[in-house]
Structure formats: structure tokens, C-alpha cells
């Protein structure tokens, strides 16, 4: 005596395969009346338990009814004059479904085996060096980014009203030295930190030009920063990372 676990079945095809298996039925000669009866009893059982019956089960019930009726009618023949078994499509569907149900079990085995394999968990201790080639560096950062960072720096510069016209004596060479001082000390510096204490626009402009000059000379490298509109300047030795 069997009780059917209600949620064991993935769908009506699965349920029919179960009946066929349980009663050792010939899948090519399914007793349609018997199986329809079983199927309907199952649906009523679900209903009795107040469970929701999926439309797919109802559709199958209708299909079974239809086959049952067609079994009673005179046999139809195809163009070759051969009798058409009203159950043929159902059998085909059952076999096709069974094929993938079997593979699902293979998949389950593969899943079981693969779950025993663990991949490496922590990559944070791997040493990484930013690529040394300037072309590779500039793949990350575009001139767009540079100019945008520059604009932002200008915009965010503390507003200071200067009443007096001053002459600035800032040269690119001085700013090159200024930048190199920074990177010699700490190997790298954020652009926003570099210009943090600059109040005059002209000084930032000249510093920025000095920076572009240094990139061209392969003396510094530039990389993206975690902050938007900023970038990291770091030292290169003859175009190579330290």
C-alpha cells in the first residue's frame, strides 16, 4: 500500500511516470482508463488536502480524458494508412521527459561530487604590482579622467577673495620638483592631496602641466583611485615600477 507524497512530483508527466513505474505498466500500451482514474484520484486528494492544484495537472487531466474518448472512437489512420494511436504523443512526451529526468539525477551526482571541492578563499595576500608600461597604465585612466579631476580640483578649491593683483613666480620645473619630492617621500600621492594647500588657480594649473610632463618623461605613473575624480601618482624608475 502506497501513499503518494504530494510534492514529490515535479509535474503531471512525473506523476504519470510514477504510476507506470509503480504498476509496471508498458509505456507503449498505457491502460488509459486506469491511469486516468488514478490521476483524477490524485487530483482529488490534493484538493481534499486543500492544496493548490497547478494548471498543468488540470491540463493533463483534460488531455487524458481526450485520449480516453479518442480510444473509443474508430481508429484514425495517417496518410500511409497506418493506425494512429491516440496515446502516441503522450508516450513521446513521457519518454522525452524521462530522458531529462534521468540526466537530472546525473546532475545531482555531479553536484554532490563538486560540492566536496573547495576553491581558494582569500586572495588579499597576493602581491600585485600595477603594470609598468605606461600604455597599460593609461588603459585605466583616460585623458578625460585627468581633465575632469583637474576641473573638479579647480571647482572645489576654497574660495578666497584676492583683492590684490600678485605676480606669481611658479615654473613647471619647480612643480616637477615639488611632485617628485612628494613621491620620493611616500612612493605615491593622491592628486587631491597634492594640490590640497594650493589656493591659487595658476599654481594648480602649473602643477597639472608638470604632472603631464612627468608622465611623458616616464618618471611617474598614474593609476585610478578609489575616489571618483581623483587619481594616484606614483614613482617610476626609468619607466619601471619600484
Amino acid at each position, binding site marked *: 500500500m502506497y501513499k503518494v507524497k504530494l510534492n514529490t512530483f515535479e509535474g503531471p508527466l512525473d506523476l504519470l511516470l510514477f504510476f507506470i513505474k509503480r504498476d509496471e505498466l508498458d509505456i507503449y500500451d498505457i491502460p488509459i*482508463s486506469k491511469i486516468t482514474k488514478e490521476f483524477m484520484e490524485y487530483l482529488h486528494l490534493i484538493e481534499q488536502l486543500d492544496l493548490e492544484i497547478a494548471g498543468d495537472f*488540470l491540463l493533463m*487531466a483534460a488531455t487524458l*480524458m481526450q485520449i480516453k474518448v479518442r480510444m473509443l472512437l474508430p481508429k484514425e489512420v495517417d496518410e500511409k494508412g497506418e493506425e494512429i494511436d491516440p496515446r502516441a504523443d503522450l508516450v513521446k512526451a513521457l519518454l522525452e521527459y524521462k530522458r531529462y529526468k534521468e540526466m537530472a539525477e546525473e546532475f545531482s551526482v555531479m553536484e554532490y561530487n563538486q560540492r566536496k571541492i573547495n*576553491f581558494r*578563499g582569500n586572495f588579499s595576500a597576493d602581491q*600585485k604590482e600595477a603594470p609598468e608600461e605606461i600604455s597599460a597604465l593609461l588603459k*585605466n585612466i*583616460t585623458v578625460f579622467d585627468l581633465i575632469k579631476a583637474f576641473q573638479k580640483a579647480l571647482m572645489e578649491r576654497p574660495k578666497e577673495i584676492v583683492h590684490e593683483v600678485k605676480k606669481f613666480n611658479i615654473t613647471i620645473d619647480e612643480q616637477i620638483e615639488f611632485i617628485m619630492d612628494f613621491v620620493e617621500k611616500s612612493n605615491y600621492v593622491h592628486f587631491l592631496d597634492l594640490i590640497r594647500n594650493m589656493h591659487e588657480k595658476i599654481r594648480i594649473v602649473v602643477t597639472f602641466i608638470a604632472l603631464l610632463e612627468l608622465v611623458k618623461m616616464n618618471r611617474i605613473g598614474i593609476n585610478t583611485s578609489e575616489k571618483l575624480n581623483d587619481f594616484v601618482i606614483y614613482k617610476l624608475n626609468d619607466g619601471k615600477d619600484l
Partner: protein
Amino acid sequence: MEKIYKSVIESLIFASDEPIGASEIVRAIKEIDGDDIDVTNKDVEETVDYLNNCYEENDRAFRILRIANGFTFGTKPEYAKYIGYLSSEKSRRRLSQAALETLAIIAYKQPITKPEIETIRGVNSDYIINSLLEKNLIAIKGRAETIGRPLLYGTTDEFLMYFGLNKIADLPKPREIEEIMTDSDFIEQKRKIMMNEIEEELEDNTSTEENGFDTSE
């Protein structure tokens, strides 16, 4: 300590998401194999030294590091430039969530202007738009006829390739995405309709059955 635990220790350090301490390793082993298993913190320390010696002798490209009160694997510095190259390549290829979001808006609403994108996203999108332009996933497709004649953006052939699509019309429609989500109300409606039909059919068939016309067995 039994020899097998050398490998267990090695596997635990390898698979741990963060540096793992000696006592955690001892705890895992005792929890699985029993409290009476003879593995101590000192054994773990010694095993790590033993393993690192093995790696050194065999020219392994990695070793176990002692950091942040725990053990973790790390590659040796001499390979840093190769690894650095790969990881920068990867970050260049990977799209951030923000980039994907923006790309999605452009893909579905193209051609679209920057102000329109920003209205939808609610944030300034200069940076993202520029990086998408740079990655060649979007391109300028002309100018809108509205005031200021802002630039219009649309997706490129690279975009289609990146997402494995033949043409823009192949993008899933928002309606289709919704459709995939199960709508329980809908299923319930369908059920009721079908149940009625089947009951009718059942009644129609009862007479046939009683008459004994059963060809199935």
C-alpha cells in the same frame, strides 16, 4: 599528530575566506574527528613551517603567510607584475553596478541625453557615461532638438557583442522579465477556469465508462 592532519591544515588555510587562526583549525578538526584527536596549536604552527619548507624546496609560487593573527596563502612578490597585469585587465573589463545600471537605461531608452539619464538615476552620471564611452559600449548618436541641444547617447556594436546579442531588439523587454516572475494570482485564476472545464468533462465521460467501453486494458 597524525600525518593526515598536515593536509587537513593545508586545506583549511587554502579554503578559508580570511586568515585563519591555529585555534580555529584545531577546533574544526576536533569537531569533526572527536575531542580526543591529538592536534594542538603548536602542531599547527609547526605544520605551517613544514609546509612552507616544502613549498620552498619545490619552488612553489606561493607560501603561507602569518598575518592578522592567522594564516593565509599568498603568491610570492616575484610574480607580482604578472598578477598585477591580469587583475588590472580584469577590472578594466568588469562593469560596476553603477555602470550596468546606466548602460541598461541607455540600452532601453536610446537615444537618450545625459540629463535624462541623470533624472532616472537620480545622481550625476558624468563619470560613468565617460567610462562607458571609453569602453566603447556607448557612443554619441547626435544631438537632441531640445534647448541646449544636448548630446544623445546610444549603445554600440561592442555592447551587443559584450552581451552576446545580435541586435538591440533582442534585449529582453521589461515586460518579459516581469513575466518570468511567478504571478500567483494569475495561476490561481487559471486553475479555477481549468477545474470547471475538467469537471464538465468528467461528467460527460461518466456515462461512457459505465457502459463499459474501456479499450485500455
